[in-house]
Protein backbone atom coordinates (compact mmCIF):
# COMPACT_ATOMS: atom_id res chain seq x y z
CA UNK A 1 0.00 0.00 0.00
CA UNK A 2 1.34 3.42 -1.01
CA UNK A 3 0.20 6.26 1.25
CA UNK A 4 0.78 9.97 0.76
CA UNK A 5 -0.31 12.34 3.51
CA UNK A 6 -0.35 16.07 2.72
CA UNK A 7 2.75 15.69 0.57
CA UNK A 8 4.24 18.79 -1.04
CA UNK A 9 7.49 19.18 -2.88
CA UNK A 10 9.10 22.47 -3.81
CA UNK A 11 11.98 23.09 -6.20
CA UNK A 12 13.18 26.43 -4.90
CA UNK A 13 10.32 28.82 -5.68
CA UNK A 14 8.53 26.34 -7.94
CA UNK A 15 6.08 23.83 -6.55
CA UNK A 16 6.18 20.36 -8.05
CA UNK A 17 3.55 18.69 -5.91
CA UNK A 18 1.04 20.52 -3.75
CA UNK A 19 -0.54 18.98 -0.63
CA UNK A 20 -1.35 15.59 -2.11
CA UNK A 21 -3.09 12.98 0.03
CA UNK A 22 -3.98 9.59 -1.43
CA UNK A 23 -3.70 5.85 -1.04
CA UNK A 24 -2.82 3.43 -3.80
CA UNK A 25 -3.62 -0.22 -3.26
CA UNK A 26 -3.35 -3.46 -5.27
CA UNK A 27 -4.37 -3.40 -8.93
CA UNK A 28 -3.59 -0.97 -11.71
CA UNK A 29 -3.94 2.75 -10.94
CA UNK A 30 -3.39 5.36 -13.61
CA UNK A 31 -1.68 8.61 -12.67
CA UNK A 32 -2.94 11.10 -15.23
CA UNK A 33 -1.86 14.62 -15.87
CA UNK A 34 -0.55 16.88 -18.57
CA UNK A 35 3.14 17.57 -18.98
CA UNK A 36 4.37 19.43 -15.91
CA UNK A 37 1.46 18.30 -13.74
CA UNK A 38 3.76 16.69 -11.16
CA UNK A 39 3.53 13.03 -12.19
CA UNK A 40 7.28 12.43 -12.32
CA UNK A 41 7.78 14.33 -9.07
CA UNK A 42 5.22 12.07 -7.41
CA UNK A 43 6.92 9.00 -8.88
CA UNK A 44 10.32 10.18 -7.61
CA UNK A 45 8.91 10.83 -4.16
CA UNK A 46 7.37 7.38 -4.00
CA UNK A 47 10.56 5.74 -5.26
CA UNK A 48 12.62 7.59 -2.66
CA UNK A 49 14.75 9.61 -5.05
CA UNK A 50 13.34 12.82 -3.58
CA UNK A 51 12.24 13.78 -0.10
CA UNK A 52 8.93 15.57 0.39
CA UNK A 53 9.30 19.18 1.53
CA UNK A 54 6.29 18.64 3.78
CA UNK A 55 4.05 15.66 4.49
CA UNK A 56 4.69 11.95 4.82
CA UNK A 57 5.05 9.08 2.41
CA UNK A 58 4.81 5.49 3.48
CA UNK A 59 5.10 2.33 1.41
CA UNK A 60 4.11 -0.83 3.24
CA UNK A 61 5.00 1.10 6.39
CA UNK A 62 8.47 2.10 5.13
CA UNK A 63 9.78 5.58 4.50
CA UNK A 64 11.04 5.51 0.93
CA UNK A 65 14.02 7.90 0.71
CA UNK A 66 17.21 5.93 -0.05
CA UNK A 67 15.76 2.84 1.63
CA UNK A 68 17.34 -0.36 0.25
CA UNK A 69 14.70 -2.52 1.95
CA UNK A 70 12.01 -0.76 -0.06
CA UNK A 71 13.77 -1.43 -3.36
CA UNK A 72 13.47 -5.17 -2.75
CA UNK A 73 9.71 -4.87 -3.24
CA UNK A 74 9.58 -1.93 -5.65
CA UNK A 75 10.28 -1.86 -9.38
CA UNK A 76 10.57 1.44 -11.22
CA UNK A 77 10.53 2.19 -14.93
CA UNK A 78 11.63 5.84 -15.26
CA UNK A 79 10.46 8.21 -17.95
CA UNK A 80 13.99 9.14 -19.00
CA UNK A 81 15.32 7.51 -22.14
CA UNK A 82 18.88 7.14 -20.84
CA UNK A 83 21.05 4.04 -20.61
CA UNK A 84 24.65 2.91 -20.50
CA UNK A 85 24.68 3.09 -24.28
CA UNK A 86 27.80 0.93 -24.74
CA UNK A 87 26.09 -1.98 -22.97
CA UNK A 88 23.96 -4.51 -24.77
CA UNK A 89 20.37 -4.80 -23.60
CA UNK A 90 21.21 -8.09 -21.87
CA UNK A 91 24.26 -6.61 -20.08
CA UNK A 92 22.18 -3.69 -18.85
CA UNK A 93 19.44 -5.86 -17.38
CA UNK A 94 21.97 -8.35 -15.98
CA UNK A 95 23.93 -5.56 -14.27
CA UNK A 96 20.80 -4.28 -12.57
CA UNK A 97 19.85 -7.85 -11.61
CA UNK A 98 23.22 -8.19 -9.88
CA UNK A 99 22.60 -4.89 -8.09
CA UNK A 100 19.30 -6.35 -6.95
CA UNK A 101 21.37 -8.88 -5.03
CA UNK A 102 21.16 -11.96 -7.24
CA UNK A 103 24.14 -14.24 -7.84
CA UNK A 104 25.57 -14.88 -11.30
CA UNK A 105 23.28 -17.74 -12.34
CA UNK A 106 20.08 -16.37 -10.86
CA UNK A 107 20.74 -12.94 -12.38
CA UNK A 108 21.34 -14.52 -15.80
CA UNK A 109 18.19 -16.63 -15.50
CA UNK A 110 16.04 -13.70 -14.44
CA UNK A 111 17.50 -11.55 -17.20
CA UNK A 112 16.64 -14.19 -19.81
CA UNK A 113 13.15 -14.61 -18.40
CA UNK A 114 12.40 -10.88 -18.36
CA UNK A 115 13.80 -10.34 -21.85
CA UNK A 116 11.45 -13.08 -23.04
CA UNK A 117 8.53 -11.49 -21.21
CA UNK A 118 9.07 -8.08 -22.83
CA UNK A 119 9.74 -9.61 -26.26
CA UNK A 120 13.42 -8.69 -26.45
CA UNK A 121 15.10 -12.09 -26.08
CA UNK A 122 16.22 -12.25 -29.71
CA UNK A 123 17.45 -8.65 -29.92
CA UNK A 124 19.01 -8.08 -26.51
CA UNK A 125 22.61 -8.83 -27.50
CA UNK A 126 22.98 -5.67 -29.55
CA UNK A 127 24.30 -2.39 -28.10
CA UNK A 128 21.54 -0.24 -26.64
CA UNK A 129 22.84 2.71 -28.67
CA UNK A 130 21.32 1.09 -31.77
CA UNK A 131 17.93 0.34 -30.22
CA UNK A 132 14.69 1.92 -31.40
CA UNK A 133 12.54 3.85 -28.93
CA UNK A 134 10.21 0.87 -28.50
CA UNK A 135 13.10 -1.52 -27.83
CA UNK A 136 14.57 0.85 -25.25
CA UNK A 137 11.19 1.08 -23.57
CA UNK A 138 10.98 -2.72 -23.35
CA UNK A 139 14.46 -2.92 -21.80
CA UNK A 140 13.42 -0.36 -19.18
CA UNK A 141 10.35 -2.47 -18.39
CA UNK A 142 12.48 -5.58 -18.08
CA UNK A 143 14.78 -3.99 -15.50
CA UNK A 144 11.79 -2.73 -13.51
CA UNK A 145 10.20 -6.15 -13.16
CA UNK A 146 13.13 -8.54 -13.01
CA UNK A 147 13.06 -8.95 -9.23
CA UNK A 148 9.33 -9.73 -9.21
CA UNK A 149 8.44 -6.62 -7.18
CA UNK A 150 5.25 -6.27 -5.22
CA UNK A 151 4.89 -2.61 -6.21
CA UNK A 152 5.59 -1.47 -9.76
CA UNK A 153 5.82 2.17 -10.86
CA UNK A 154 5.86 2.89 -14.55
CA UNK A 155 6.47 6.48 -15.64
CA UNK A 156 5.06 7.01 -19.14
CA UNK A 157 5.85 3.40 -20.14
CA UNK A 158 3.81 3.45 -23.33
CA UNK A 159 5.87 6.17 -25.02
CA UNK A 160 7.34 4.75 -28.20
CA UNK A 161 5.61 1.40 -28.01
CA UNK A 162 3.86 0.20 -31.15
CA UNK A 163 0.23 -1.04 -30.97
CA UNK A 164 1.36 -4.64 -30.46
CA UNK A 165 3.69 -3.54 -27.69
CA UNK A 166 0.90 -1.59 -26.04
CA UNK A 167 -1.41 -4.57 -26.23
CA UNK A 168 1.27 -6.85 -24.77
CA UNK A 169 1.93 -4.33 -22.03
CA UNK A 170 -1.77 -4.08 -21.15
CA UNK A 171 -2.00 -7.88 -20.97
CA UNK A 172 1.13 -8.09 -18.82
CA UNK A 173 -0.13 -5.44 -16.41
CA UNK A 174 -3.54 -7.11 -16.18
CA UNK A 175 -1.79 -10.38 -15.36
CA UNK A 176 0.40 -8.74 -12.70
CA UNK A 177 -2.59 -6.95 -11.21
CA UNK A 178 -4.48 -10.26 -11.00
CA UNK A 179 -1.56 -11.54 -8.89
CA UNK A 180 -2.25 -8.78 -6.35
CA UNK A 181 0.57 -6.43 -7.34
CA UNK A 182 0.23 -2.70 -6.86
CA UNK A 183 0.85 -0.97 -10.17
CA UNK A 184 0.99 2.78 -10.71
CA UNK A 185 1.24 3.85 -14.33
CA UNK A 186 1.59 7.49 -15.34
CA UNK A 187 0.49 8.97 -18.61
CA UNK A 188 -0.55 12.26 -20.12
CA UNK A 189 -2.78 10.55 -22.67
CA UNK A 190 -6.16 9.40 -21.42
CA UNK A 191 -6.94 6.84 -24.09
CA UNK A 192 -3.61 5.10 -23.47
CA UNK A 193 -4.62 3.96 -20.02
CA UNK A 194 -8.40 3.94 -20.02
CA UNK A 195 -8.54 0.35 -21.26
CA UNK A 196 -6.04 -0.77 -18.62
CA UNK A 197 -7.79 0.49 -15.53
CA UNK A 198 -10.77 2.38 -14.21
CA UNK A 199 -8.88 3.58 -11.14
CA UNK A 200 -7.26 6.95 -11.63
CA UNK A 201 -5.47 9.81 -9.94
CA UNK A 202 -5.73 13.10 -11.79
CA UNK A 203 -2.95 15.61 -11.22
CA UNK A 204 -3.14 19.18 -12.40
CA UNK A 205 -0.46 21.79 -11.69
CA UNK A 206 0.83 19.79 -8.76
CA UNK A 207 -2.56 19.28 -7.15
CA UNK A 208 -4.55 16.07 -6.96
CA UNK A 209 -7.65 17.11 -8.84
CA UNK A 210 -9.65 13.90 -8.71
CA UNK A 211 -9.32 10.31 -7.62
CA UNK A 212 -11.42 7.25 -8.10
CA UNK A 213 -13.26 5.63 -10.94
CA UNK A 214 -12.65 6.76 -14.50
CA UNK A 215 -16.29 6.00 -15.32
CA UNK A 216 -17.37 8.70 -12.87
CA UNK A 217 -15.16 11.19 -14.68
CA UNK A 218 -16.56 9.95 -17.96
CA UNK A 219 -20.14 10.45 -16.80
CA UNK A 220 -19.22 13.94 -15.64
CA UNK A 221 -17.87 14.60 -19.10
CA UNK A 222 -21.03 13.24 -20.67
CA UNK A 223 -23.17 15.79 -18.84
CA UNK A 224 -21.30 18.61 -20.54
CA UNK A 225 -21.65 19.56 -24.21
CA UNK A 226 -19.08 17.58 -26.18
CA UNK A 227 -17.42 19.10 -29.24
CA UNK A 228 -17.32 17.08 -32.49
CA UNK A 229 -15.95 18.33 -35.82
CA UNK A 230 -17.12 16.58 -39.01
CA UNK A 231 -15.58 16.92 -42.48
CA UNK A 232 -18.01 16.41 -45.35
CA UNK A 233 -18.51 17.24 -49.02
CA UNK A 234 -22.14 18.15 -48.32
CA UNK A 235 -22.32 20.20 -45.10
CA UNK A 236 -25.95 21.23 -45.50
CA UNK A 237 -27.22 17.73 -46.32
CA UNK A 238 -25.31 16.18 -43.42
CA UNK A 239 -26.45 18.90 -41.01
CA UNK A 240 -30.04 18.30 -42.04
CA UNK A 241 -29.75 14.64 -41.09
CA UNK A 242 -27.76 15.16 -37.90
CA UNK A 243 -30.05 17.81 -36.44
CA UNK A 244 -32.74 15.15 -36.05
CA UNK A 245 -30.58 13.13 -33.66
CA UNK A 246 -31.67 13.57 -30.02
CA UNK A 247 -28.11 14.08 -28.68
CA UNK A 248 -27.22 16.97 -30.94
CA UNK A 249 -27.51 20.34 -29.19
CA UNK A 250 -26.20 22.68 -31.88
CA UNK A 251 -24.54 22.73 -35.29
CA UNK A 252 -22.31 25.45 -36.67
CA UNK A 253 -21.09 25.69 -40.28
CA UNK A 254 -17.48 26.32 -41.21
CA UNK A 255 -18.23 26.50 -44.93
CA UNK A 256 -14.75 27.43 -46.14
CA UNK A 257 -13.42 24.13 -44.88
CA UNK A 258 -16.53 22.01 -45.53
CA UNK A 259 -16.68 21.37 -41.83
CA UNK A 260 -19.47 21.11 -39.31
CA UNK A 261 -18.92 21.97 -35.65
CA UNK A 262 -21.34 20.10 -33.36
CA UNK A 263 -22.17 20.19 -29.69
CA UNK A 264 -23.58 16.88 -28.45
CA UNK A 265 -24.61 15.20 -25.21
CA UNK A 266 -23.85 11.56 -24.33
CA UNK A 267 -21.15 11.23 -26.96
CA UNK A 268 -21.17 7.41 -26.99
CA UNK A 269 -24.82 7.35 -28.12
CA UNK A 270 -24.08 10.04 -30.68
CA UNK A 271 -21.13 8.13 -32.15
CA UNK A 272 -23.26 4.98 -32.42
CA UNK A 273 -25.96 6.90 -34.28
CA UNK A 274 -23.37 8.58 -36.53
CA UNK A 275 -21.80 5.22 -37.42
CA UNK A 276 -25.22 3.88 -38.31
CA UNK A 277 -25.93 6.87 -40.57
CA UNK A 278 -22.58 6.52 -42.36
CA UNK A 279 -22.66 2.76 -42.84
CA UNK A 280 -26.34 2.12 -43.48
CA UNK A 281 -27.61 5.36 -44.97
CA UNK A 282 -24.53 6.54 -46.85
CA UNK A 283 -24.03 9.81 -45.00
CA UNK A 284 -21.14 11.51 -46.89
CA UNK A 285 -18.72 11.96 -43.98
CA UNK A 286 -15.01 12.09 -44.83
CA UNK A 287 -13.78 12.25 -41.27
CA UNK A 288 -14.54 13.40 -37.77
CA UNK A 289 -12.65 14.27 -34.66
CA UNK A 290 -13.38 15.40 -31.14
CA UNK A 291 -11.11 17.98 -29.58
CA UNK A 292 -12.79 17.14 -26.28
CA UNK A 293 -11.79 13.51 -26.28
CA UNK A 294 -8.54 14.11 -24.48
CA UNK A 295 -7.17 14.72 -21.04
CA UNK A 296 -7.04 18.46 -21.45
CA UNK A 297 -10.80 18.59 -21.76
CA UNK A 298 -11.20 16.45 -18.66
CA UNK A 299 -9.14 18.97 -16.72
CA UNK A 300 -11.05 21.83 -18.25
CA UNK A 301 -14.35 20.37 -17.13
CA UNK A 302 -13.08 19.47 -13.69
CA UNK A 303 -11.42 22.82 -13.08
CA UNK A 304 -14.48 24.70 -14.30
CA UNK A 305 -16.74 22.44 -12.23
Amino acid at each position, binding site marked *: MIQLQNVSRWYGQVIGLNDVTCQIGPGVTALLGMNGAG*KSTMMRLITGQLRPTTGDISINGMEPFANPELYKILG*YCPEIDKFYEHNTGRQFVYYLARLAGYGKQEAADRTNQMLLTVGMADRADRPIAGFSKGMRQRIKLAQAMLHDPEIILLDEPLNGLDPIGRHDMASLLAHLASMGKTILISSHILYEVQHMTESILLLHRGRLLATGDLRVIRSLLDKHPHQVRINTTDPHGVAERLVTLPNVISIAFETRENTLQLEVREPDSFYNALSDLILNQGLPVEGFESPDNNLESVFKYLVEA
Partner: protein
Amino acid sequence: MEFYLYTHSVKEFLRARRIAAWVILTLMVAAIGLVWKYVAKSETDTQRYADLTSIFTFHLVALAAAIMTTSIIGQEVEQKTIVYILTRPVSRWKLLLMRYLGAVTVVSLIGILCSLLLSAAVFGGNPLGNSLLVPDIMAIILGAFAYSAFCLLVSLLIVRSMIVCILFILAWETTVPNMPGDLYRLSIYSYMQAIAQHPAVTDNRGTAFLSGDLGNNFLQPSTGYPVLIIVSVILIAFSLWWFTIFEFVPREDSD
Protein backbone atom coordinates in the same frame (compact mmCIF):
# COMPACT_ATOMS: atom_id res chain seq x y z
CA MET B 1 27.29 -8.03 -3.86
CA GLU B 2 30.04 -5.66 -2.62
CA PHE B 3 32.68 -7.62 -4.50
CA TYR B 4 30.60 -7.51 -7.68
CA LEU B 5 30.21 -3.73 -7.31
CA TYR B 6 33.98 -3.42 -6.96
CA THR B 7 34.90 -5.71 -9.88
CA HIS B 8 32.27 -4.16 -12.13
CA SER B 9 33.65 -0.73 -11.32
CA VAL B 10 37.22 -1.83 -12.13
CA LYS B 11 36.07 -3.42 -15.40
CA GLU B 12 34.24 -0.24 -16.39
CA PHE B 13 37.34 1.89 -15.76
CA LEU B 14 39.48 -0.61 -17.69
CA ARG B 15 37.26 -0.55 -20.77
CA ALA B 16 39.50 -0.19 -23.81
CA ARG B 17 38.10 3.20 -24.80
CA ARG B 18 38.62 4.62 -21.32
CA ILE B 19 42.04 3.18 -20.53
CA ALA B 20 43.71 3.58 -23.94
CA ALA B 21 44.49 7.27 -23.42
CA TRP B 22 46.16 6.57 -20.07
CA VAL B 23 48.30 3.78 -21.49
CA ILE B 24 49.42 6.11 -24.28
CA LEU B 25 50.31 8.78 -21.71
CA THR B 26 52.41 6.31 -19.69
CA LEU B 27 54.23 5.30 -22.87
CA MET B 28 54.87 8.97 -23.60
CA VAL B 29 56.36 9.44 -20.12
CA ALA B 30 58.65 6.43 -20.76
CA ALA B 31 59.65 7.95 -24.12
CA ILE B 32 60.54 11.21 -22.35
CA GLY B 33 62.64 9.10 -19.95
CA LEU B 34 64.64 7.81 -22.91
CA VAL B 35 65.13 11.31 -24.32
CA TRP B 36 65.94 12.85 -20.91
CA LYS B 37 69.35 11.15 -20.88
CA TYR B 38 70.38 13.53 -23.62
CA VAL B 39 68.74 16.60 -22.04
CA ALA B 40 70.10 16.22 -18.47
CA LYS B 41 73.47 14.69 -19.22
CA SER B 42 75.08 15.70 -15.93
CA GLU B 43 72.48 13.93 -13.77
CA THR B 44 72.63 10.35 -12.53
CA ASP B 45 70.00 7.81 -13.59
CA THR B 46 68.45 7.99 -10.13
CA GLN B 47 68.22 11.80 -10.29
CA ARG B 48 66.70 11.69 -13.78
CA TYR B 49 64.14 9.06 -12.71
CA ALA B 50 63.28 11.06 -9.59
CA ASP B 51 62.76 14.29 -11.56
CA LEU B 52 60.54 12.65 -14.15
CA THR B 53 58.50 10.78 -11.54
CA SER B 54 57.89 14.00 -9.63
CA ILE B 55 57.01 15.96 -12.75
CA PHE B 56 55.02 13.41 -14.72
CA THR B 57 54.06 10.25 -12.82
CA PHE B 58 52.74 11.92 -9.68
CA HIS B 59 50.78 14.48 -11.68
CA LEU B 60 49.48 11.75 -13.98
CA VAL B 61 48.13 9.94 -10.93
CA ALA B 62 46.42 13.13 -9.77
CA LEU B 63 44.96 13.77 -13.21
CA ALA B 64 43.70 10.18 -13.58
CA ALA B 65 42.12 10.38 -10.12
CA ALA B 66 40.37 13.63 -11.06
CA ILE B 67 38.97 12.34 -14.33
CA MET B 68 37.95 8.90 -13.09
CA THR B 69 36.45 9.73 -9.72
CA THR B 70 34.45 12.70 -10.93
CA SER B 71 32.72 10.31 -13.33
CA ILE B 72 31.66 7.90 -10.56
CA ILE B 73 28.52 9.86 -9.67
CA GLY B 74 28.84 13.12 -11.62
CA GLN B 75 28.62 11.37 -14.97
CA GLU B 76 25.68 9.26 -13.83
CA VAL B 77 23.83 12.42 -12.79
CA GLU B 78 24.67 14.25 -16.02
CA GLN B 79 23.70 11.25 -18.15
CA LYS B 80 20.63 10.74 -15.95
CA THR B 81 21.37 7.04 -15.50
CA ILE B 82 21.70 7.49 -11.74
CA VAL B 83 18.04 6.62 -11.28
CA TYR B 84 18.76 2.97 -12.08
CA ILE B 85 21.39 2.54 -9.38
CA LEU B 86 19.59 4.58 -6.74
CA THR B 87 16.47 2.43 -6.96
CA ARG B 88 18.24 -0.88 -6.29
CA PRO B 89 18.36 -2.66 -2.94
CA VAL B 90 21.93 -1.67 -2.22
CA SER B 91 23.00 0.94 0.32
CA ARG B 92 24.17 4.15 -1.24
CA TRP B 93 27.34 4.22 0.85
CA LYS B 94 28.33 0.71 -0.23
CA LEU B 95 27.75 1.59 -3.85
CA LEU B 96 29.89 4.70 -3.60
CA LEU B 97 32.64 3.07 -1.56
CA MET B 98 33.03 0.15 -3.97
CA ARG B 99 33.12 2.45 -6.98
CA TYR B 100 35.68 4.64 -5.22
CA LEU B 101 37.86 1.61 -4.48
CA GLY B 102 37.53 0.55 -8.12
CA ALA B 103 38.71 3.96 -9.26
CA VAL B 104 41.62 3.96 -6.78
CA THR B 105 42.69 0.53 -8.05
CA VAL B 106 42.78 1.66 -11.67
CA VAL B 107 44.45 4.99 -10.88
CA SER B 108 47.10 3.14 -8.87
CA LEU B 109 47.64 0.67 -11.72
CA ILE B 110 48.15 3.55 -14.15
CA GLY B 111 50.68 5.17 -11.80
CA ILE B 112 52.53 1.91 -11.16
CA LEU B 113 52.64 1.11 -14.88
CA CYS B 114 54.01 4.58 -15.53
CA SER B 115 56.68 4.14 -12.83
CA LEU B 116 57.74 0.74 -14.14
CA LEU B 117 57.97 1.92 -17.75
CA LEU B 118 59.84 5.07 -16.73
CA SER B 119 62.21 3.05 -14.57
CA ALA B 120 62.85 0.65 -17.45
CA ALA B 121 63.50 3.56 -19.80
CA VAL B 122 65.90 5.34 -17.44
CA PHE B 123 67.68 2.34 -15.96
CA GLY B 124 68.00 0.45 -19.25
CA GLY B 125 65.55 -2.40 -19.04
CA ASN B 126 65.99 -3.26 -15.36
CA PRO B 127 63.19 -1.37 -13.66
CA LEU B 128 63.40 -3.39 -10.44
CA GLY B 129 67.01 -2.33 -9.87
CA ASN B 130 65.75 1.13 -9.01
CA SER B 131 65.89 1.77 -5.25
CA LEU B 132 63.23 4.54 -5.48
CA LEU B 133 60.64 2.27 -7.05
CA VAL B 134 59.07 0.81 -3.89
CA PRO B 135 58.63 4.14 -2.05
CA ASP B 136 57.30 5.66 -5.29
CA ILE B 137 54.73 2.91 -5.62
CA MET B 138 53.65 3.49 -2.03
CA ALA B 139 53.39 7.22 -2.71
CA ILE B 140 51.38 6.53 -5.86
CA ILE B 141 48.91 4.25 -4.08
CA LEU B 142 48.35 6.61 -1.15
CA GLY B 143 48.24 9.58 -3.52
CA ALA B 144 45.58 7.75 -5.57
CA PHE B 145 43.51 7.25 -2.41
CA ALA B 146 43.83 10.91 -1.36
CA TYR B 147 43.30 12.53 -4.77
CA SER B 148 40.38 10.23 -5.55
CA ALA B 149 38.74 10.95 -2.20
CA PHE B 150 39.14 14.70 -2.71
CA CYS B 151 37.81 14.67 -6.28
CA LEU B 152 34.92 12.36 -5.35
CA LEU B 153 33.81 14.76 -2.64
CA VAL B 154 34.04 17.72 -5.02
CA SER B 155 31.99 15.81 -7.60
CA LEU B 156 29.24 15.26 -5.02
CA LEU B 157 29.19 18.88 -3.92
CA ILE B 158 29.25 20.75 -7.24
CA VAL B 159 28.17 20.23 -10.83
CA ARG B 160 30.79 20.10 -13.58
CA SER B 161 33.34 19.17 -10.98
CA MET B 162 35.90 17.82 -13.42
CA ILE B 163 36.99 21.33 -14.43
CA VAL B 164 37.45 22.29 -10.77
CA CYS B 165 39.42 19.13 -10.04
CA ILE B 166 41.68 19.52 -13.06
CA LEU B 167 42.36 23.14 -12.10
CA PHE B 168 43.16 21.94 -8.60
CA ILE B 169 45.67 19.43 -9.98
CA LEU B 170 47.30 21.73 -12.51
CA ALA B 171 47.33 24.95 -10.53
CA TRP B 172 47.10 24.30 -6.78
CA GLU B 173 49.07 21.07 -6.67
CA THR B 174 51.85 22.50 -8.83
CA THR B 175 52.12 25.87 -7.12
CA VAL B 176 51.45 25.28 -3.43
CA PRO B 177 54.38 22.86 -2.81
CA ASN B 178 56.71 25.66 -3.97
CA MET B 179 55.28 28.33 -1.69
CA PRO B 180 57.27 29.75 1.20
CA GLY B 181 56.80 28.82 4.83
CA ASP B 182 54.55 25.89 5.74
CA LEU B 183 52.02 26.40 2.96
CA TYR B 184 53.34 23.34 1.14
CA ARG B 185 51.59 21.29 3.82
CA LEU B 186 48.28 22.15 2.14
CA SER B 187 49.13 20.00 -0.86
CA ILE B 188 48.63 16.24 -1.26
CA TYR B 189 51.61 16.27 -3.59
CA SER B 190 53.94 17.35 -0.76
CA TYR B 191 53.05 14.25 1.24
CA MET B 192 53.59 12.02 -1.79
CA GLN B 193 57.05 13.59 -2.07
CA ALA B 194 57.57 12.98 1.64
CA ILE B 195 56.93 9.25 1.13
CA ALA B 196 59.02 9.07 -2.05
CA GLN B 197 62.01 10.98 -0.57
CA HIS B 198 63.40 11.93 -3.97
CA PRO B 199 66.77 13.66 -4.06
CA ALA B 200 66.30 17.43 -4.41
CA VAL B 201 66.73 19.14 -7.76
CA THR B 202 69.65 21.56 -7.40
CA ASP B 203 70.53 23.36 -10.64
CA ASN B 204 67.42 23.71 -12.83
CA ARG B 205 64.72 26.03 -11.40
CA GLY B 206 62.12 25.00 -13.97
CA THR B 207 62.51 21.34 -13.10
CA ALA B 208 62.64 22.24 -9.41
CA PHE B 209 59.33 24.16 -9.72
CA LEU B 210 57.56 21.29 -11.48
CA SER B 211 58.96 18.88 -8.87
CA GLY B 212 57.76 21.08 -6.02
CA ASP B 213 61.34 21.52 -4.80
CA LEU B 214 61.31 25.34 -4.42
CA GLY B 215 59.47 25.14 -1.09
CA ASN B 216 60.75 24.01 2.30
CA ASN B 217 59.37 20.48 2.21
CA PHE B 218 61.33 18.58 4.85
CA LEU B 219 58.51 16.16 5.60
CA GLN B 220 59.47 12.58 6.39
CA PRO B 221 57.69 9.36 5.38
CA SER B 222 56.56 9.03 9.00
CA THR B 223 54.44 12.15 8.36
CA GLY B 224 53.49 11.44 4.75
CA TYR B 225 51.91 8.03 5.37
CA PRO B 226 49.57 8.92 8.25
CA VAL B 227 48.55 12.29 6.78
CA LEU B 228 47.51 10.81 3.42
CA ILE B 229 45.68 7.95 5.13
CA ILE B 230 43.84 10.26 7.54
CA VAL B 231 42.97 12.78 4.80
CA SER B 232 41.62 9.97 2.59
CA VAL B 233 39.54 8.45 5.37
CA ILE B 234 38.03 11.79 6.42
CA LEU B 235 37.21 12.84 2.85
CA ILE B 236 35.70 9.51 1.87
CA ALA B 237 33.69 9.30 5.10
CA PHE B 238 32.24 12.73 4.40
CA SER B 239 31.46 11.71 0.81
CA LEU B 240 29.68 8.55 1.93
CA TRP B 241 27.58 10.49 4.44
CA TRP B 242 26.73 13.18 1.91
CA PHE B 243 25.75 10.67 -0.78
CA THR B 244 23.53 8.82 1.69
CA ILE B 245 21.48 11.77 2.88
CA PHE B 246 21.22 14.08 -0.14
CA GLU B 247 19.15 13.88 -3.31
CA PHE B 248 20.87 13.11 -6.58
CA VAL B 249 18.24 13.79 -9.21
CA PRO B 250 19.08 16.04 -12.16
CA ARG B 251 17.24 19.34 -11.60
CA GLU B 252 16.18 19.66 -15.23
CA ASP B 253 14.33 16.35 -14.92
CA SER B 254 11.91 17.80 -12.47
CA ASP B 255 8.56 18.68 -13.92
